[in-house]
């Protein structure tokens, strides 16, 4: 190996380090904040690895009386909104792809570019009139604004790439449109459905703006609950950081283990304008 090649390798290593370090540093610091006692979090210069680990921060968060409620709220809202979106979105993506009705996808695009806040004003009034505020129903419905467009968008793209020959053969054999979808198209589309599922779960789980308006004391999701913790300034940093890490941990794990699907989904959606 020549000196020049070694130099190139070192240069590349430095570049990689510079690019990845902000993310690595941030999440390590997040972890550090969450396992430190107040005295370590308030010391200057900052302590990175404390002498004593404050695992108690995590226990405090997990055993606080409302954490379980907020966790199940998030699970119900995200789960229902994602499941409903797959139920209506996968067939819709199939139909739009087979009809080649690309213009109908503009509606999906509009949903993608609209600020979430603008759906809140009319739907908030509607839920108020219907007397639904105080239940999880408004949040489940409004999360469809997030999940349905993602699912339809990704499924259109996926069904456009699946081969037509098998479906045509099934039609010739006398299968109905529905049977073709159910037994031919759907099994092939499983990887696409996985991508749509993962992205819908992540974006619904992370959603914050709908919750701050629609959630009451009993119906908060985890992101809203964490935000409400910030308002209490007397709370120490350790438990706050622990709560933040707990809320985002499922998403971070998904990012690591389903990286391929996430990257495929995001770039497909992105390059197509969503």
């Amino acid at each position: 190996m020549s000196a020049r090649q070694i130099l190139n390798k070192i240069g590349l290593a430095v570049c990689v380090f510079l690019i990845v370090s902000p993310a690595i540093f941030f999440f390590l610091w997040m972890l550090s904040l969450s396992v430190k006692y107040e005295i370590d979090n308030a010391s200057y210069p900052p302590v990175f690895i404390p002498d004593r680990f404050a695992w108690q921060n995590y226990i405090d968060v997990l055993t606080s009386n409302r954490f379980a409620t907020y966790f199940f709220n998030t699970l119900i809202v995200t789960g229902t909104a994602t499941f409903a979106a797959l139920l209506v979105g996968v067939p819709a993506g199939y139909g739009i792809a087979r009809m080649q009705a690309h213009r109908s996808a503009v509606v999906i695009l509009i949903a993608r570019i609209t600020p979430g806040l603008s759906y809140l004003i009319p739907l908030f009034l509607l839920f108020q009139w219907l007397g639904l505020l105080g239940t999880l129903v408004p949040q489940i419905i409004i999360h469809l604004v997030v999940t349905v467009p993602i699912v339809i968008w990704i499924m259109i793209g996926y069904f456009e790439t699946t081969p037509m020959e098998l479906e045509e053969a099934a039609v010739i054999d006398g299968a109905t449109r529905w049977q073709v979808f159910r037994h031919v198209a759907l099994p092939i589309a499983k990887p696409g459905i996985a991508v749509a599922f993962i992205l819908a779960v992540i974006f619904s789980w992370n959603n914050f703006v709908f919750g701050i308006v629609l959630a009451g004391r009993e119906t908060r999701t985890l992101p809203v609950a964490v935000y409400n913790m910030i308002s209490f300034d007397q709370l120490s940093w350790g438990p706050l950081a622990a709560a933040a890490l707990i809320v985002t941990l499922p998403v971070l794990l998904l990012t690591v283990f389903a990286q391929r699907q996430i990257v495929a989904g995001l770039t497909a959606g992105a390059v197509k304008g969503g």
Partner: protein
Amino acid sequence: MTTTAHDRIDANAGGAAPADELRPVSYWPFVLPALIVVLAVIVFPWVFTIWMSLHEWKVGAPTTFVGLANYWRMPRDPRFVEAVWHTLVYTALSVVLPLVFGTLAAVVFHQKFPLRGVLRGIFIMPMMATPVAIALIWTMMFHPQLGVLNYLLSLFGLPPSLWVFDPGTVIPSLVLVETWQWTPLVMLIVLGGLAALPTEPYESAMIDGASFWQMFRYITLPLILPFIFIAGMIRLIDALKSFDIIFAITQGGPGSASETVNLYLYSVAFVYYDIGYGSAIALVFFVLIVMLAAVMLYFRQRFHWAEAGGGA
């Protein structure tokens, strides 16, 4: 009448289908449930918003029709005008910086090196993580006395900053978070573009003795420009409607120094409950974003790069 119109559109669409015997009209049952959902949660809110924006509509008070009065209020509302300026500054910075860093990161991730997959996974974590959770940690890092960022500055011999606690530095500080968060998306899109590049131009350039930077400047950059452009348009839309990070870190403060249109909209609608005016702002904001998206669609159709990024 409507049925015939539909049939005609479907017939046109079907003409391009690979198999003509698959009558396109039979696919409507597949789309119908989604159509109902979309009408209920996307189209209905917009129609209702237009209706509300034409009224003096406050929660707990009778509503009266006021025509376009809510729209005329906007240019004379100093807080709105100020919010527009904040939005423009915030958006401009939040488009340009992620584009620059994202493109550089894509060039690096296009090289082969050990642990590339793992490091790419870590690199995209900021954009997948729950925004409120990362906003909380950034708020702690921005703390002027105890925050780690001022400590890092001191390591490089730089004076401490007040970050988000000073009206003069709050927007750049928030842009720092936004850039950290969304550079990965630009990187992924540009990386998709790099993966689709032909190898021939590089081979001939190598023979001609071109340097790495010459090849990047004269071959790579022009070829990936469409991808950078698309990434830029997506960034533009997302930066304009950015909410979570700003709301969770500053709530538009200190004072109203970081109040963007989206945050002002939140205050008008859900703090002052001025539903009519809020609806008007929502509509104007929406039209602005749609116009930008239309430009994006136009360019997307002009260049055909639809498949290129999908396999990344």
